[in-house]
């Protein structure tokens, strides 16, 4: 239950790697300083990107009761910043550095009813919650949304374990989720836990508010790696400091500015805390706000952005944005 956010680093040894869906590897790790992993918890892992250590967060999918064995599942994203590429190189016997379980997404025991909503790889944060609620004989539904069945990890296992409590929606089978129907079926005593792409989570957040549900009963976690658009390369300039850098698809604006020697303020690096806020002076293109810090009003105003996760793109039209040869977006900012 506790929100645990003090990082205790330990060694881990990979004991098994299996492919569980298109582009998704299940990685089981034996830890050197076991600590109990509650549903909703994650680990931070040191990954190597171009030989440099960087930190990435992965939800714990399963764990042995004492936390000695932790399992994560990693989706190798097309626009990976390098972390998932590294994780997919791991093989049994490999060593890695990871934290003890960290908790920012605790499952509260004792709600009247639960809805667990997973979109794609978001199932990694949700699967353990479903297992707990089943053991507790709670009133829950597990709603699992994906593009195509072959990309949905653990689907058969979840259907076998949770039976009628699982509701599956697959886009390419024409059974996409109707968010408003999902929310309409909840009550003021329902707690909804979700993890998935930003479009899905944003639709649920708006629908939840529109239906007048209790705002803090909607629980979600984001690691800030899902956007409204495919990532594009863009340019960021800080006129006051005479800095101009290109932000490639595999890097965040914050990382690019740090690499250019700018002394940046930040903390969570997942679009949550707002400390990495920069002021937008000029914009050629649009901002793909990937944070959960700003309100929609603030995001539409496009005067500020969370540079740890948000990006600039050339067009709000996704198809046009990917047309080859179009001029990259450019954003001029000032920093704190």
């Amino acid at each position, binding site marked *: *239950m506790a929100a645990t956010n003090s990082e205790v680093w330990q060694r881990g040894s990979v004991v098994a790697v299996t492919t569980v869906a298109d582009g998704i590897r299940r990685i089981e790790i034996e830890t050197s300083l076991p600590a*109990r992993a509650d549903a909703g918890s994650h680990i931070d892992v040191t990954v190597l990107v171009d030989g440099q250590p960087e930190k990435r967060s992965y939800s714990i999918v399963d764990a042995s009761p004492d936390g000695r064995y932790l399992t994560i599942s990693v989706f190798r994203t097309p626009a990976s910043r390098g972390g998932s590429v590294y994780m997919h190189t791991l093989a049994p016997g490999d060593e890695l550095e990871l934290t003890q379980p960290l908790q920012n997404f605790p499952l509260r025991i004792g709600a009247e009813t639960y809805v667990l909503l997973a979109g794609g790889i978001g199932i990694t944060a949700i699967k353990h919650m479903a297992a707990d609620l089943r053991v507790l004989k709670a009133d829950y539904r597990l709603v699992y949304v994906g593009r195509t069945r072959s990309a949905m990890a653990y689907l058969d296992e979840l259907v076998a374990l949770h039976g009628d409590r699982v509701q599956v929606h697959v886009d390419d089978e024409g059974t996409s989720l109707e968010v408003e129907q999902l929310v309409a079926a909840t009550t003021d005593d329902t707690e909804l836990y979700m993890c998935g792409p930003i479009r899905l989570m944003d639709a649920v957040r708006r629908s939840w508010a529109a239906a007048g549900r209790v705002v803090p*009963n909607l629980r*979600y*976690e984001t690691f800030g790696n899902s956007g409204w658009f495919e990532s594009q390369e863009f340019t960021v300039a800080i006129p006051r400091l005479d800095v101009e850098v290109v932000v490639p698809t595999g890097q965040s604006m914050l990382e690019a500015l740090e690499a250019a020697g700018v002394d940046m303020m930040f903390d969570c690096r997942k679009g*949550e805390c707002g400390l990495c806020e920069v002021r937008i002076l000029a914009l050629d293109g649009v901002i793909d706000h990937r944070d959960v810090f*700003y309100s929609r009003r603030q995001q539409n105003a496009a005067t500020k952005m969370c540079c740890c996760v948000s990006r600039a793109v050339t067009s709000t039209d996704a198809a046009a944005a990917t047309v080859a040869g179009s001029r990259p977006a450019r954003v001029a900012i000032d920093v704190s």
Partner: protein
Amino acid sequence: MTTTPTVRTSSTTAKTMNFPLNAWYAAAWDREVTRKPLAVRVADTPLVLYRTEDGKPVALADACWHRLAPLSMGVLIGKDGIRCPYHGIVYNSAGRCVAMPAQEVLNPSATVPSYPVVERHRFIWVWVGDPRKADRETIPDMHQMHDPAWAGDGETINLECNYQLVLDNLMDLTHEEFLHTSSIGGDDISSSEFVVTHDEDGVTLTRWMIDIPPVPFMKAQMRNQYPGFEGNVDRWQIIHYQFPSTICIDVGVAKTGTGAPEGDRSQGINGYVMNTITPVTASTANYHWAWMRNYALDSQLLTTQIRDGIRNVFTEDTGMLQAQQKAIEANPEYEFYNLNIDAGGMWIRRFIERALEAEGRLKTAG
């Protein structure tokens, strides 16, 4: 079940007993939890307790998610909320942030732990361990606290000693003869036979003292029911332990030879000494007690007199327990030695030790 009996023996006599986390502890009396936040510490976990507008008790971690300011210094707001006294972040009774003054969107991580809490037997019980295991059916039975067939009252003693020392004290009442000479002691306790039994639910220690002069406290109780009573009594002390740290003692006396040992208590008086001890830190504990009786139920005078009298008796225990804790700390190289009179306390230690083992926390015992 174990291949290392010598290790088991020494840990069972730990001078500083660790406390299980997967257990219900009485965090406060029902009357202490109000619409004003109350700071308590249970099993080394700082908590803020309060009631919602609907009167439901709430237990949250007593540290704001943001900068750890104690929420117990804050104010209650709305139906079930509490506002941090420092920067105004508001949490609901589930520990979820419902207002962040300096931004338009609630941070999804903004929560403080909320703990399972149950109001029962005039106490507010909390569970600071794994909430998935918090079964309210395992709250100790202390029904005499509110059963209409019983009357009485009690208090809390803030003790500077490990909680297990109190459990040891209550399971071995031979100390009454020496520590409580003028009230509930008596020459016949340490020389009388006692029987210890245990099952999966707890430990019971039974002692009968037949045809003895009543001790002053019991004589006064008899005279309340039987004005001018003189003569000898049969006295009983039947001590019931329930996990993790509750001891209810069936006590009383009856005119000797009237059949009390065989079950006819009609010629006597019967009380229940209710005790539940909450570990605060390794070396402090909150000892909640009450003395309940099943006679003269409508006498508030008797309730007050007995409560005040028992308070004085227990002050003698307070002095001894705290002196014992100091001596333990001053003599780190000395170990406990166990006597036959410690059998009840030793069984409790085994219950607690097994619970700690199940939590993987046995080795941290000091």
